[in-house]
């Protein structure tokens, strides 16, 4: 399908271009020599095996331990209140908001890969979209928790929703914080639906291949009785395309709305119109980094190099390079506007952000988001060096976490009146909850890898050479 759009530049001698198929002259996304059956067996055997690899248990123990830390920290939080965190005046928004924005941003790459790249007919995304979507959902789970536990009395969190109550109180629709409720809840719902609908045909395959009675029932229920009728497939394809078309403006709107939480305030450092595009680009930047962080160990562990090829890693590096430059433009524009606005407060805020007592965080951000990735990702050699790309993915994730730290903390801790200046130092409970969400994310992701199809078999089959419809004579000649 989409690979036809990427014809090599010199069609006369396709063998000269690395990674092309000599038969068709198209760029090869999957490793050669795979058939419908080999793909199906490879992916379903990961799930339908009674032998769980020991390494899975080891990692799950680590993730589970992290999730337990989260449970303990949240229990203590509910008992004592948000006073156990470092949030106070002047920094009233601390780790909770930083982590919320960071996690949501990570989630966005999943939607980007599954929706936007589908609309752009980027066939290569078929190998990575499923686990990128899973990453989205688990990231949204982690993200959604933060505003809820930050409201102080989380058992009253449902007050955010417009519902007829005996108090006759209704939400205030002119606040970006309420827009957030609708943006994030819609995003979570649509992501889950998109993910599940995408898996239905693969559940059908699992149902048919499962030998264990329980697995047959389990996947049979999940598959909803999918039988692969082409009429069903056509409606299914239409629905997938429509969901992608809907998820694309959704993902852009979600991070835009999140940036409104900041941009609508009048605080120097927050009150800027560059925020929506710059937040969205940053989200995609960190999200692709997280996809790499997950994909690189995963393909090695389960020997999926034939499906998640070096070309995928290379392409993701290119997307990171592009979004990294948009982010760099955002940083540049912030600095420029601090000067060009001729506002004393803006200029001071920026000076304080870069050279103030917490200026170190700005330099961590510049190093991790600009200096290291944007100088090295130009090189194809480095982009296809798996160890280096894993390193870069960790660097960018760190950098993007510090970006949110810089935006939240360094804008707040020294405001208009020097008498109200303060500082911010996170407590052990702040760290415990952050580390805990990393553990929860790992644990959920491992469960996904073990029990659900992590690569969409039906979409991979479509990309195989055997899926080409050929006229009879050509088919006979090929045999």
């Amino acid at each position, binding site marked *: 399908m989409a690979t036809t759009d990427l014809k090599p530049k010199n069609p006369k001698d396709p063998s000269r271009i690395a990674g092309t198929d000599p038969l068709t002259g198209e760029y090869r996304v999957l490793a050669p020599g795979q058939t*419908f*059956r080999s793909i*199906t067996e490879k992916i379903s055997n990961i799930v339908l095996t009674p032998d769980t690899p020991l390494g899975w248990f080891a990692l799950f123990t680590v993730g589970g331990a992290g999730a337990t830390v989260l449970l303990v920290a949240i229990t203590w939080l509910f008992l004592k209140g948000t006073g156990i965190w470092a949030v106070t005046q002047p920094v009233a928004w601390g780790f909770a908001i930083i982590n919320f924005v960071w996690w949501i941003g990570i989630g966005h790459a999943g939607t980007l890969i599954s929706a936007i790249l589908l609309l752009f007919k980027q066939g290569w995304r078929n190998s990575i979209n499923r686990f990128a979507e899973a990453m989205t959902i688990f990231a949204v789970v982690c993200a959604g928790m933060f505003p809820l536990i930050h409201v102080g009395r989380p058992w009253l969190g449902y007050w955010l929703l*417009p519902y007829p109550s005996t108090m*006759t*109180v*209704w*939400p205030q*629709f*002119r606040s970006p914080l*309420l*827009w957030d409720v*609708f*943006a994030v809840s*819609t995003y979570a*719902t*649509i992501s889950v*639906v*998109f993910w599940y*609908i995408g898996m239905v*045909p693969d559940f059908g*395959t699992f149902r*048919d*291949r499962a030998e264990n009675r329980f697995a047959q029932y389990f996947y*049979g*229920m999940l598959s*909803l*009785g*999918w*039988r*692969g*009728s*082409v*009429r*069903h*497939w*056509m*409606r*299914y*394809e*239409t*629905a997938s395309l*429509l*969901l992608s078309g*809907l*998820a694309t*403006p*959704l993902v852009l*709107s979600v991070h835009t*709305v999140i940036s409104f939480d900041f941009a609508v305030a009048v605080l120097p450092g927050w009150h800027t119109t560059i925020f929506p595009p710059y937040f969205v680009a940053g989200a995609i930047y960190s999200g692709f980094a997280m996809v790499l962080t997950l994909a690189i160990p995963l393909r090695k562990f389960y020997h999926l190099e034939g499906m998640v090829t070096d070309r995928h890693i290379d392409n993701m590096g290119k997307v990171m390079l592009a979004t990294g430059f948009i982010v760099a433009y955002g940083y540049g524009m912030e600095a420029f506007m601090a000067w060009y606005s001729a506002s004393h407060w803006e200029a001071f805020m920026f000076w304080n952000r870069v050279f103030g007592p917490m200026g170190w965080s700005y330099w961590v951000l510049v190093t991790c988001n600009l200096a290291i990735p944007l100088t090295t990702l130009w090189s194809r050699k480095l982009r296809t060096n798996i160890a280096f790309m894993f390193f870069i993915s960790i660097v960018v994730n760190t950098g993007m976490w510090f970006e949110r730290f810089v935006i939240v903390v360094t804008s707040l801790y020294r405001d208009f009146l020097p008498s109200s200046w303060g500082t911010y130092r996170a407590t052990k409970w702040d760290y415990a909850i952050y580390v805990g969400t990393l553990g929860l994310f790992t644990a959920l992701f491992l469960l996904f890898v073990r029990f659900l199809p992590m690569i969409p*078999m*039906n979409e991979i*089959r*479509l990309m195989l050479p055997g*899926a*080409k*419809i050929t*006229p*009879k004579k050509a*088919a006979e000649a090929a045999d």
Partner: protein
Amino acid sequence: MPPREGTYGLLAEFDTPSDLVRAAQAARRDGWRRMDCYTPYPVEEAAEAIGFHRNKVPLVTLIGGLMGLAAMFSLETWISVLAYPLNIAGRPTYSWPAFVVPAYEWTILWAGLSAAFGMLALNGLPALYHPLFNAPNFRKGASQDKFFLCLEALDPKFDLIETRAYLATLEPVSVVEVEY
């Protein structure tokens, strides 16, 4: 509902999508209408061959989206103007630009849910039982690497013996009878 008895149809198995598409085109040309193809991934050409060109999913999605838009925008207007008017910095109670954001989100929410559940409903899913699963080779292949053409007994041209002979002319790997 009492269990139905008799024959659901005849199921021909093919090894490649090209064989299936050719067979489906031939069957359609020869006047068959009650038929369906079963494939492990979407084969657009097969849908064309059996004369399935468009579907109602986009319409359902559009209606869902418009309903979501209308629902949220009217809810916001009703709450802010009538049910609970609040003076926020002297701004008008009917602040429609601020209402756009949640209304936009709900348009997407309702449209997306309509697309997903509308698709399932139009497909008649969930349907955990289907006569095709009785065919011995169907479960081994239809969701993995085989391609099937089913001529259904409801077609007026259907006759167990003649149809079996007809399917054999399409060079399938095998033809089996599917019972209810």
